[in-house]
């Protein structure tokens, strides 16, 4: 199935879903050298975001987080694509400077998608493609 979305950062990429209902502060929550979430209070703690389609409500925290996304990308440890309910400037800018597809304004049930579900994010066409019956 296809759902409509709004393009924040262009491109098309796919990968397994990694979903959290918590906001992410890339500075502090994620180790830029490993791509692993390291903040013990975050529900993704211990999980790698590398290569995933990272689905989360939006970013938070320091604006340095934008650079951390760029650093992850240069090390091949960034998410393949990202989906937000509503993007804020830190993640938006991070995705753009890193050439990572990012879309937002998707229905809230996207946060019910199971981890590992294969997802295509086509920011150019402003659609997210999920397998039928994935929610």
């Amino acid at each position: 199935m296809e759902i409509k979305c709004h393009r924040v950062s262009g491109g098309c990429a796919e990968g397994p879903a990694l979903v959290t209902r918590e906001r992410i502060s890339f500075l502090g929550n994620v180790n830029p050298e490993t791509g692993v979430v390291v903040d013990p209070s975050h529900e993704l703690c211990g999980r790698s975001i590398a290569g995933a389609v990272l689905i989360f409500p939006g970013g938070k925290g320091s604006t340095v987080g934008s650079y951390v996304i760029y650093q992850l990308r240069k090390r091949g440890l960034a998410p393949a694509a990202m989906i937000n309910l509503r993007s804020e400037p830190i993640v938006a800018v991070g995705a753009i400077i890193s050439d990572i597809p990012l879309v937002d304004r998707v229905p809230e049930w996207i946060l019910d998608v199971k981890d590992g579900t294969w997802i295509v994010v086509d920011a150019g066409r402003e659609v997210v493609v999920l397998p039928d019956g994935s929610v």
Partner: protein
Amino acid sequence: MHLTKEEEHLLQGERGDTLRRAMEILVALGDIYGAERLVEIKSAQIAGVSYKTIGDAGLEWISDLDGMVAVPSILNPAGMDLLRWREMSIDEDFARKQLEIIEAYRRLGVTIECTCTPYLVYESIASRGDHLAWSESSAVSYANSVIGAMTNREGGPSALAAALVGKTPLYGYHLEENRVPTHVISVETDVREYGALGFLVGKLIGEGVPLFVMRSRPDRDDMKALGAAMAASGSVALYYIKDVTQEPPRYEPSACEHIVIDEDDIMSVYDSTTDVDIVALGCPHCSLQELERIADLLEGRRVSKELWICTSRRIAESAPDLVRRIESTGARVICDTCMVVSPASERFSHMMVNSGKALAYIPGMCGIKASFGSLEECIDAATGGS
């Protein structure tokens, strides 16, 4: 968002990758905040300079860009005095990375002046009614409130994107409808340190646009301290002072929250502790008048503790005699950086400051204690009250 033909071309990458990405940043922010279009800016002031704050991630991004800024652009403070870093006990590795960051900005045509007070260095950088893309929160507050220019608080990449394109999305404080007061603050006492008042009010209101009604008459240095503190303990980017700053646009007083500040409230910010191992002044960077005042207060004294006075290189170089007078007491005049963004602060344990902004940031950013005192109390603490 409506784009002109020329802006569309930039977005399509017809003038290269760097400008395409810069446009993408501006358009994405415009979409997020509901801007109708871009607006031309007079100048940019770019954060994300200290290696301590942006690290290798930031250095890599800036180094990978290829282009030239379209409007006068200057930098926020770096992590060290760019010339006298060895005297600050900065290690070689940090210094090398810091200089690489500076070099990367220089290649983009950014003026290498690292200061949180661009308005003291280049008067023509902002005038009343100008649109700007500035990052440093205290400078944003000063530009909006004291100069009467219009700027949002930009992150490092968005300020640099605006500098490269020469435009910023038209939203937030660029629109008069968002510049109306939300709080009326009645100050029922004489204010001596405006940094203390700002620290208090920023904490109380968080974000918002305060209108102060007070009998004290702050000068420009006082307003620099007031705005800096409110932007640090809260996220205030615009304020008014009745009969001192520009008039606010038409607003509805009954829709505002009213707050009364008295002497006891302000005194609660001060700390009687003088058991500190460093005293640091110049947050935001000292003006020429502040350097003169410090030199006068230090006259005939000798410091017994580390005393830093932070200012912009331009101001320091314009007053070599003042700098000599201050340094002959054992104090250091430090340029291009400050106590908040330099790792040099971390080797101390307790810092005394006369800045509400430094008071808000030092514990979290440097991992050391901070106490607030007046300028005179700070000088006394540094000189053992001699």
